[in-house]
């Protein structure tokens, strides 16, 4: 495993036949230049960097959780944790037409895909796929949203990650993980939301399975008030 810093050029043998270039790497001509500091990863023609950061940089195809900040003309202005605002068109919602506009207010959150990240413009988001289907995207109602590091987010949605499965044995909850480091959870009671929030925050630096189970168990039995 190699660690790269921004500006480095990747010379790994496994990167020569890679067709998919992922997070933290940019293609400049023939060279693969690193844009973020992180550990090099490669897998079946894919290369990316595993970066520990808190600030999100938009990438096409990422599913993110966005906060509606204002309405401007035919667009909603959204906050996705980047330096600039992102936009979403009224028509990019399932079942939306020129007449039938989605009813979103300032402070609402939506789960959407980044589909346009042209440099020097605001990123554009969509809540529908190519077939105009929502497929789970759209407004998130109720629940609680909080922020963790991007690395932790990627770990949570990894199928081989045990955290959510272990938590599922104790809690009944709904979760949405955005690649921009935001997590939305919903549970029947506030107390459970608080406990889940606590477990997710604390599980970031836990790798052992036993440790994880004891953490979840501890949170499950712990009383919230006082």
């Amino acid at each position, binding site marked *: *495993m190699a*660690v790269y810093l921004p500006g480095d050029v990747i010379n790994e043998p496994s990167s020569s036949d890679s067709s998919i270039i992922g997070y933290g790497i940019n293609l400049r001509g023939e060279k693969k230049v690193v844009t973020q500091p*992180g*550990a090099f*990863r*490669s*897998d079946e023609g894919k290369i990316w960097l*595993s970066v*520990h950061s808190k600030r999100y940089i938009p990438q096409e195809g990422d599913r993110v959780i966005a*906060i509606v*900040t204002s309405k401007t003309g035919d667009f909603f202005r959204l*906050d996705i*944790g980047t*330096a600039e605002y992102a936009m979403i068109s009224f028509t990019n919602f399932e079942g939306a037409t020129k007449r039938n506009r989605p009813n979103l*207010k*300032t*402070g*609402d*959150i939506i789960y959407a895909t980044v589909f346009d990240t042209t440099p020097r413009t605001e990123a554009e988001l969509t809540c529908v796929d190519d077939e105009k289907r929502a497929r789970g995207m759209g407004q*998130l*109602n*109720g*629940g*609680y*949203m*909080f*922020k963790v590091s991007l*690395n*932790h987010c*990627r*770990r949570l949605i*990894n199928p*081989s990650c045990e955290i959510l499965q272990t938590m599922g044995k104790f809690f009944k909850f709904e979760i949405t993980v955005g690649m921009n480091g935001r997590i*939305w959870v919903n549970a029947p009671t*506030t*107390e459970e*939301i*608080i406990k889940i*929030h*606590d477990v997710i925050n604390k599980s*970031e*630096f*836990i*790798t052992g399975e036993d440790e994880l189970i004891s953490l979840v168990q501890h949170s499950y039995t*712990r009383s*919230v*008030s*006082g």
Partner: protein
Amino acid sequence: MRVPPLTTCEKEVILEALKSGKRFDFRGLEEFRGVKLVVGSEIGTAICTIGNTKVIAAVSAQIAEPSSMRPHKGVIIIDVDLSPMANVSNEHDRLGSKGMELIRLLELIIRDSRCIDVESLCIRAGKEIWKVRVDVRILDEDGSLLDCACLAAITALQHFKRPNVTLEPHHTLIYSEYEKAPVPLNIYHMPICTTIGLLDKGQMVVIDPTEKEAACLDGSIVVACNKRREVCALHQSTNLVLSTKQIERCVKLAMSRAEALTAVVSDVIKQDQRERSAFKRPDGFSITTPSLILTSGTAAARQINAPRIQHGREPEEKMLYQPSVIVNENPLSVGSVKQEEVDEDALIAEQLSIIQNSVGGVAVSDPQSSGVSKRKKEKEMVDDLLDGICDSEEEEVKTEILGSSEPMEVVLPVVEQQKDEEDVTSWRKKKKKV
């Protein structure tokens, strides 16, 4: 840059939780976060941490000319800078409304409450005075910013020592610390700030709110007071109409907090002085660096692993062996009966018996002296003892002086304190009658 806006769902959940007495950090509504206070190896520096809020303060002094209005008074200048590292919306050298509020309140609390004797800072009236500068830097923000900044500034001022000077007919001699021992500032009292969040138009109070909680609350009230139960400043952030009863309640909460934190500050300073007088090299801020060193995991490429932690030693545990750090946990939660309190009672009883024995012993050993002088002596003795009791009894909170081999603190609840005093005074009266 801007801060991410507060979403409706967050606000709803936080408010709902608060109204049912729950908080996201598992605290009660009237529970404070732990306070960590560290003084630096440099004289006059301190870092204060409350939860995630972190503030560093540094005090320096220089000789300047006084203003013509106050020719025999020193000057105290407070400088605040909000670092963008603390909150993305902050900018260097631009305070904004939040920063202005902070600096005005700090000036009000530290300078206008006259806790520092500015007259002793005068070297030559109308010509030379000491200009004391307090630099406050916000390193991390998570609510209760003023509490943290005030505590850091007060600790730094307590820790600070100005160079010694002597006056010659035509010039002033300034000594380095190797020639003549530096002089500490004359501090009359320590104002301690407490932020209290208000909910439901002031019907409910949320103590020590975090940044997110503060954003959801109706407003907050800041009370600065000292351990002598004097209110130094009162500030309300929003134009909420509060009843006298509500304000009184807030002040009462702030007073118990002030007593607790004053003890912590004086402990930290005393510990540091003890070490310095023993020519031990002070650890300074090196102990605040976390022992968690993040490295990327060495897992296979498919497994995106969280960064591993190098478990050298637990950070909390590491703190325990460091001198001049005091971890002060939830001063208000002392109310419940615990094993510690049972021990405390035993300790009090022991102390009381020691006092009585010792006083009695002295009285017996001095039978020749006349009645009047005897009484005088007794009075002095009892006064000394009372002072001693008062000193030790300030530490209402469970404070740990870390690094010392024996348990240093004497933990006494307030009620007992009064009882003790009564005991001693009644005993004293009895003596007088005899």
